Every structure is written in structure tokens, then in C-alpha cells.
């Protein structure tokens, strides 16, 4: 039952006097370990003892076991009157499995975002005017939550409406130095993006950087004229 190695330590503590000597402590520790592991509820020392052969001392075995698990991935902990094996608190993060599902932004969101990027700083009313439909609160909230847009300065117009601007995170995500690097209408058209359907062979559009380099003043200034 017991390993010869185990008998070394524990054997000195409890010499085997009789035929019915209790198992050596190392063996008792194994038993407690197995029971705590398999039990669906915390177990008291008494309950452990009841299952073990006569002469065993579950309380002592628990002390050894607890020490053995110190600093391990799981610990032997007291739960009320009983004992249980639990994950070490610092490893709780492993018990959470975070799955990230990537979804495309909705059409409404991407359009709103595009308008903010091209027209910033822009008020909600202006976005609605350009899109021709009202902008839902959820769409704006989503973009703010994604940290792609934020509130800009209020407009100095009646009502002092808030404006929206794009963020650093936005520029980062789209690989832009500034919102000015966004291609203007001319480039969009040159890239075939102004056709209602982009040509099937259309690869990546000409990078905004190149475009911007050729026509430094294109883009927003042109677009802002209305």
C-alpha cells in the first residue's frame, strides 16, 4: 500500500508495532488528499477519519497536506468546519476563458464614423444631415466605447452643440498619422470607390499615405466646402 520511500520519513514517527498499526503518515496524507479531491463538498477532519482505517489521524495528515500544497497551484483550505482543495487565488484568471468574437461594424456605425473622420469636429445634427437619417444613440455610444471617437469642443453656434472627433486609437487602428491623411473624394473616385459597386478586381485602395503625399491639401478642406 505504502511506497517504500514514504515509509522512510513517516516510519520513524510511527514504528509499526502491531499487525494493525495505522498506515504511516505519508499514506494517511495520500488518503486525505484523494478524499478531499474527490469529495463534492468540504469534509471535516472527522468525516475524513471515519473513512480511514483505524488509528489514523486525519487532522495531522491535513496539516502535512496543507504544508505540501503551500505555494502550489491549488491549496488545502478551511471552509467552515471542513477542508477543501481550492485554486490558488492568484490563478483565478485561468478559470475565466475569455473568447473574443470579432464582428464587422454595422453599416450605420461605419458611416457615422466615416463622417466624423472626414468632417471633424462635427455635431450630431451635421452627421444626420450628411447621412440623411438620424443617428442612434447606440451607434455613437458604441464608437465612444471603442475609443474611436470622443467629444470635441462645443460648436460656437446657437445651442452650443457638442462635436465629435476621432481619437488616437482610431488613427492607430487605421494606420493614419492624422485624419487629414484620409483620402479625399478624388482619390476615392480614382480608386473606384465612388462607384456603387467596387470593381471585383479592386485590391487594397491606394494607401492614404501615398495619396496624401501627392496632394497634401486634398481631402478635408475640399470636403468641407459645401
Amino acid at each position, binding site marked *: 500500500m505504502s511506497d517504500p520511500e514514504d515509509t522512510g520519513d513517516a516510519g520513524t514517527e510511527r514504528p509499526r508495532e502491531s499487525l494493525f498499526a495505522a498506515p504511516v503518515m505519508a499514506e494517511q496524507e495520500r488518503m486525505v488528499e484523494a478524499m478531499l479531491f474527490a469529495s463534492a463538498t468540504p469534509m471535516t477532519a472527522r468525516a475524513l477519519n471515519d473513512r480511514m482505517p483505524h488509528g489514523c489521524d486525519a487532522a495531522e495528515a491535513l496539516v502535512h497536506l496543507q504544508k505540501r500544497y503551500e505555494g502550489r497551484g491549488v491549496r488545502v483550505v478551511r471552509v467552515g468546519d471542513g477542508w477543501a482543495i481550492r485554486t490558488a487565488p492568484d490563478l483565478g484568471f485561468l478559470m475565466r476563458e*475569455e*473568447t473574443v468574437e470579432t464582428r464587422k461594424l454595422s453599416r450605420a456605425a461605419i458611416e457615422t464614423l*466615416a463622417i466624423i473622420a472626414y468632417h471633424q469636429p462635427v455635431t450630431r445634427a451635421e452627421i444626420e444631415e*450628411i447621412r440623411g437619417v438620424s443617428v442612434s444613440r447606440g451607434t455613437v455610444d458604441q464608437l465612444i466605447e471603442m475609443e474611436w471617437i470622443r467629444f470635441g469642443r462645443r460648436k460656437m453656434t446657437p445651442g452650443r452643440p457638442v462635436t465629435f472627433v476621432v481619437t488616437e486609437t482610431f488613427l492607430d487602428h487605421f494606420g493614419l498619422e492624422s485624419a487629414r491623411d484620409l*483620402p479625399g*473624394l478624388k482619390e*476615392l473616385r480614382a480608386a473606384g470607390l465612388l462607384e456603387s459597386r467596387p470593381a471585383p478586381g479592386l485590391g487594397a485602395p491606394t494607401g492614404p499615405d501615398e495619396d496624401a503625399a501627392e496632394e497634401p491639401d486634398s481631402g478635408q478642406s475640399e470636403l468641407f466646402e459645401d
Partner: protein
Amino acid sequence: MTKPDQDRVVAHPSVAERLEAEALIVDVDGFEGPLDLLLTLSRTQKVDLRRISVLHLARQYLDFVEKARDLRIELAADYLVMAAWLAFLKSRLLLPPDPEEEGPSGEEMAAHLAFQLERLQAMREVAARLMGRDRLGRDIFARGLPERMERVKRVSYTATLLDLMQAYARIRTRDEFRPFVMDRDRVYTMEQALERMRGMIGFAGMWTDIASYLPEGWGGDPVMRRSATAATFAASLELVKEGRAQIRQSETFAPIEIRRTDRERPT
């Protein structure tokens, strides 16, 4: 049960074995098919299955079937099929091989049957060993209190620069060709043109290019000019229909000219 020794399953000195043979008949339902029955019968030979006498086994089986018939026990069809096959096998084993005859020899057939029996026996033995292993939930245990692995689902939205530009392009394109939205500022209606021309036609005694009737400010922008031209032309036709004006075009693509009808003068 205690039938006298008129059994044909003779040559069994032991009473126990005789009883076993009896039991076979009574308990025919307990067999899992003819192969199982054959395997049980083969045990009476007390030899390794590899050295079993298939001929003897065939006889035992045929005796069994015979008995069942005597006792009016209805045997399932597959038992009878096996019986017919064994009878055939028996004849092949007993008769000297006919060189003319095609097909497997009696020995080959017997060997295969022995193989089948041995295989079935082997499967039974390993099945028993398998079931006798330390088993989860009986000898070996899993964690009694598994901790819940929490599943957190996070949705991350994404878009590419292409998406962004296409979206913007879509919006701008909508502005440029708005076929269904009447853009009142940039459309000159026929009613507007007619009203304007009604006021002016009375003074047009000379042939005049209808382009000169275009309202002020509508000549520059091509969209507006087109709209105004179309409206003015339509209004001119309307005036002609009313009999208040005459219209002409000297040749294809030449300017369209209009003047008031002379009939009006007498009125």
C-alpha cells in the same frame, strides 16, 4: 430434465456434462446466436480452441437442432441456416475431396469456423478484463467539486480603412445622384417655366432662342441649366399647344426658337 441416456449427445461420461447438454436445449433463448451456441458446445471438448474437432462440433450442433425439433422448440432461422451449413461442412469433411469440385475444401471451412470461435472467445475474455479494470467512479475518481470555468464572451468590433472609405464614398455618392429625392433648390419645374414664359411671350414678336428664356442664375451650373432648359422647353410646347406661341428648329441641334402667334394680335 432427467431424461434417460438415450441422448445422442453421447460419449459424455460425466453427469454434469450431460446436464449441461440438457440445459442447452431448455435454455436456447439464452444464446446469443448460433456462434455462441457453438462456442458453448465446444467447451465440452475440453481442448484448446485451436485443436478443436470441428467435425465433432458439427455433430454436436446438429444433434442439438435435432433435439430441439423433437421437443418442438422453434429455432430461429439463423440456427437452421447454421445447421444446414454444418451439415454441408460435415459431408465435405467426411468425403474424400473431389478434384473436379470448385470452392473451398472442408478443411478450409473448418479452419475458418475455428477461427471465428477463437476470435469470439478472445473477445469475451478481453471484455471481461476490460470490465474488471479500475474504473472511473468506482475505483478511480475525478474532482468532486470541479470549479466552474467561466466563459466570458467579449465582442470586438472592427473595420478596415477600406470599409471606412467605402462608407464615406457611399454617403457622398448618394449626394451626387439622388434620383428619388427632389432637390427643390436645383430643379426648375415646368410650372415655374410656364408662369415665367406666359408673362414674357407676349413681348416676343421675333423668333427667339428659348435659351434666352432661362431664368437668371440657372445658366451656370450644368445640373441647374439642364433642369431649367428642360422645363423651359416643356413650357414652350405647352404654350404652342395652347396656341399662344410658335416653335421651330431650323436643323438638327440648331437652337430652338419661339415667338408669339400672330393670331393673338387681333384679340
